[in-house]
């Protein structure tokens, strides 16, 4: 029975008068493939921002690997092993693709096992299919290459938990499979992965367990089969 790697306990997040997260709880086991879905505006990215530390919470707590991390700044969390990619890619535009990974390696990745240094960056780029662009700036990359760079940069941080925030939005079918294959491979290496996606076939194929959010609350949890048949989920996506 795998232990819980990430425990989110009753997290509340308010923006002025608007409650984005209303006491959300979930728990992700070590090595699990976890899916997080929900209609637009349900609070998925807000939850991820709270877990990664970008946003402070108004209530509840977050524990990672048994350690209380509520209130810890993002850079420290990434050193513990919580790494995320961004929905809208945010590459370091003044550096080459390789140096983008270098930052993660030097700062977040160096804190844990794995040899820091250029060999590692090249390996990651090769495994993800970006080695042809190693010495280019992000400005010259295509859509899917930017998404891959986001993932590669996260990988270079040697994550224990990788949160992939809509990495496949707007990609073609083959490209989606491409990214999916990378994520499966990472999980096989032992990395716990939380996938946030709108592309249902990807989430259903990938996840072992799924949590559904709607309007800042958890409305369903279960295996992909259970979720597909869940009445509350249908209601959330299609309306009454």
């Amino acid at each position: 029975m795998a232990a819980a790697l990430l425990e989110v306990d009753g997290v509340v997040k308010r923006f002025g008068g608007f409650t984005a997260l209303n006491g959300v709880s979930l728990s992700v086991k070590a090595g699990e493939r976890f899916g997080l879905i929900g209609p637009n505006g349900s609070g998925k990215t807000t939850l991820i921002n709270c877990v990664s530390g970008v946003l402070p919470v108004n209530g509840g707590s977050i524990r990672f690997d048994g350690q209380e991390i509520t209130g810890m700044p993002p850079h420290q969390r990434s050193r513990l092993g919580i790494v995320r990619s961004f929905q809208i890619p945010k590459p370091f535009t003044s550096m080459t693709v390789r140096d983008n990974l270098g930052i993660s390696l030097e700062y977040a990745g160096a804190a844990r096992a794995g040899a820091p240094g250029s060999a590692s960056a090249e390996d990651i780029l090769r495994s993800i299919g970006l080695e042809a662009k190693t010495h280019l700036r992000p400005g010259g990359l295509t859509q899917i290459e930017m998404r891959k760079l986001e993932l590669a940069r996260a990988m270079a941080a040697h994550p224990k938990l990788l949160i992939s925030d809509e990495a496949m939005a707007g990609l073609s079918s083959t490209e989606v499979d491409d990214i999916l294959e990378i994520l499966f491979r990472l999980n096989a290496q032992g990395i716990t992965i939380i996938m946030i996606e709108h592309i249902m076939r990807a989430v259903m194929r990938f996840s072992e367990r799924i949590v559904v959010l709607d309007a800042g609350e958890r409305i369903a949890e279960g295996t992909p089969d259970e979720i597909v048949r869940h009445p509350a989920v249908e209601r959330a996506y299609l309306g009454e």
Partner: protein
Amino acid sequence: MGRTAGALLIGIAIVGAGIALAVVKVNPYFYFAGYVILQYVVIATAWNILGGYAGYVNFGTPAFFAMGAYTAVLLIKSVKAPLPVLLLAGGLVAGLLGLGIGYLTLRLRGTFFSIATLALAVMLQTVVMNWEYVGGSRGTSVIRPPGPPFGSYVTFLFTVMVGLAVASVLIARFIERSRIGRGLAALRDSEEAAECMGVPTLRLKLFATTVSGFLLGVAGAPFPYYVTFVEPNSAFALDYAVNALAMPMIGGTTSWLGPVIGAVLLGTAQQIAIVTISSEMNLFIVGVVLVLFVVLAPEGILGLVRRMRGH
């Protein structure tokens, strides 16, 4: 390590040349103009450590420069401190000022930091103008100490400025190539992503503001001995504010070379212009050039060169 040693040797050679120049009697105006240009090399380099490397714009350069100058005035008047002490103290006070402003505003967006630096310059000038001990709004005169180690006092100060210029460029270059420099570049490109990839952005920003402030204060510390009469309007001159921005922007903000190019080009142009046109027209032109560059060639001369080489 080889590259750093090479840079150090070049630096020492330049300082040596400076000493030689100080002793040889060249046209005296050369030393005055040279001092100002070299001072701008330090100022532009210092500004760029925060502005170019980290992406946080400091509009209050006069505040830090004047902090250095007035700390020196204070120490000269009270204990007749020697020049090295003035340099160190001026730098430390200005560095602390940078740290303070940074601590108060850097957790917010960059625009708040910039606005705070603007208001800071005005406020500090008010404080100094009300402080009689350092001369208040009328200013105070400062007597140069006797016996400079070589040359006359002016040529000696010229050499000191050569040394400060070399030192500041070496410091900037060192930072740029270090892990800290890479972290600063990451936070400049995308602060949120950098933070999530393990870069301690607040700590690095505070580092940059402190070092930048320190160097600006060091640039200002010899000022009292250079002008011998210090008054707020010249110590807090608008020239420093606009040149500290214009020189790195014109030269190029991503590398240590940019501020140097900008300082030498713009500084020399201004020294020539000062004798032909009014100082206000001179400032007006600098302002226009600054706006033109920021709109049309934001990456400066270095950027244009890079583009021509086909990067």
